[in-house]
């Protein structure tokens, strides 16, 4: 019996090694290809036949040379991500707090609206939203990207869930001490919510950083587009941009990987936050 378990355990281990190897393969492929000239990829395709004698970091040198828009895009993405994370966390925390801690008229109707937004794919309203953004005069600006999604239903849902575990007696005690309703939120609740901010910040940060379709629609000027949109624009059929495309794709993932290694549990909690529903 004991021996059988041992064999089983080894087989299981080998199986998962294989699964992980297959999982990592596309990223390793991307990484090794970033050391080859783009013309190589164009001629021979993306594969593992790397001639390490001629492998070099020219692509990265080109990337950092400043002769292209890459770091402009990087900066745009970073700026939008930071602003959107801060605003979405703050506003959604307010809303989630309102739902969790108070009883008021139309509360159920309002919360049903939160669920409705979560249920309907945003692609359904992409055309009227596009016209609205034009009408508001915020096309080709980062506010056009951010404003429609500045309050995130997912975050509201999560904060509400998180706060419902906190005793309401806190509130009453604070009120007796003369704290205003908003003072309670800022002085007592926000510090209590810190752990949930980390996970939700990562959730929001990942979706802002990786967002593609909406920024592509909103941004028009080459200098203002975000990193994913910029990378996509490099995928021309002639392959003359492959040097930057491959190295740039790698360099887009690396910071996230580093953050992931450092804050793994927050990443997993944040990106699987929807699961609390189940």
């Amino acid at each position: 019996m004991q021996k059988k378990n041992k064999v089983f355990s080894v087989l299981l281990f080998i199986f998962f090694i294989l699964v992980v190897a297959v999982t990592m393969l596309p990223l390793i492929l991307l990484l090794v290809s970033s050391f080859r000239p783009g013309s190589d990829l164009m001629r021979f395709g993306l594969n593992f036949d790397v001639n390490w004698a001629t492998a070099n970091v020219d692509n990265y040198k080109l990337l950092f040379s400043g002769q292209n828009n890459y770091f402009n895009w990087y900066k745009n993405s970073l700026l939008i991500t930071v602003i959107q994370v801060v605003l979405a966390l703050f506003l959604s925390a307010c809303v989630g707090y309102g739902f969790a801690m108070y009883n008021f008229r139309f509360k159920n109707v309002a919360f049903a609206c939160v669920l409705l937004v979560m249920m309907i794919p945003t692609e359904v309203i992409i055309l009227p939203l596009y016209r609205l953004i034009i009408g508001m005069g915020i096309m080709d600006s980062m506010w056009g990207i951010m404003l429609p999604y500045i309050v995130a239903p997912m975050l509201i849902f999560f904060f509400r869930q998180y706060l419902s575990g906190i005793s309401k007696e806190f509130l009453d005690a604070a009120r007796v001490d003369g704290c205003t309703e908003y003072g309670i939120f800022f002085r007592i609740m926000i510090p209590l919510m810190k752990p949930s901010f980390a996970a939700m910040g990562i959730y929001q940060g990942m979706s802002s950083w990786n967002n593609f379709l909406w920024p592509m629609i909103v941004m028009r000027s080459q200098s203002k587009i975000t990193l994913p949109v910029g990378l996509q624009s490099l995928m021309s059929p002639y392959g003359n941009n492959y040097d930057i495309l491959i190295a740039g794709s790698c360099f887009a993932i690396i910071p996230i990987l580093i953050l992931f290694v450092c804050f793994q549990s927050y990443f997993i909690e944040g990106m699987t936050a929807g699961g609390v529903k189940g």
Partner: protein
Amino acid sequence: MEKKSVFKRFLYSQKVAPYVFILPFILTFLIFFAYPIVSTIAMSFQKVAGDNTTFVGLKNYKMLMNPVFYKSLKNSIFYMIVSCALMIPIPMILATMLNSRHMRAKGFFRSMMFVPALTSVVVAGVVFRLMFGELEGSFMNQVLEFFGKDPVIWLRKPLTVWLALFVLCLWRWTGVNMMYYLSGLQQISGDLYESASIDGASSVQQFRFITLPLLKPTTIYVLTISIFGGLAMFTESYLLFNGNKSPNNVGTTIVGYLYRMGMEQNNIGIGSAIGVLLLVIVMVINVIQLGLNGTFKKGE
């Protein structure tokens, strides 16, 4: 001065405060959700040219009865069904295996399998487009060569296009779905398995009669996100084909067709009609699901 303090007292009262807190949501909901929904429904009955709109009745919907739209509808529904069929059992079984007490280095494998979810759809699209390239040396063609097969042009015929799309989907989301199942599994008490094995239940029986039923809430959640994610799939196809174009529309989805009509051909009326149809499909699925979950709850 007097007036301001009345206003302030009103704003600070316990009755008004909750509305102030949820105000950001109410505003964005009305402006960026409710209004667009209403306007897309209205525009689906109109011919829209700049700011001029004329009522055209059901003309936009009639225009949709064309083979390309049917094909994109079929593609989306097919993608949704197959992705649900893949993205539920595979992560569930992987999670069960990973959760086994005979497994070592669980944390390591768990993290490694999560990594693809960190990549943007663009980076994933770039790699997969090149891996499934038509050159003889493209990675997938090298795999074929290894098995003694001739290279193929992957992104042309339906069979290989679907293969590429599903491999991409599996690659990006298996880790995330597995995580949902792992947290579901951790809520199942170990005592259940222990007493089952004392009663002589095999591990397959334990999976069938303990794990599977107790994972139902997780499965419902994963099913929901897979249905809506599948129906709204567009960017994956956009990146794989490097644009909203695929030979013979093999990879065109509902949202792809909406984008083509509304954004590329500036035919807002027809684009809106597609949006409304998608909305109706989504709502029907929601109602069915709520109904099913409701009856499940009564049964329990």
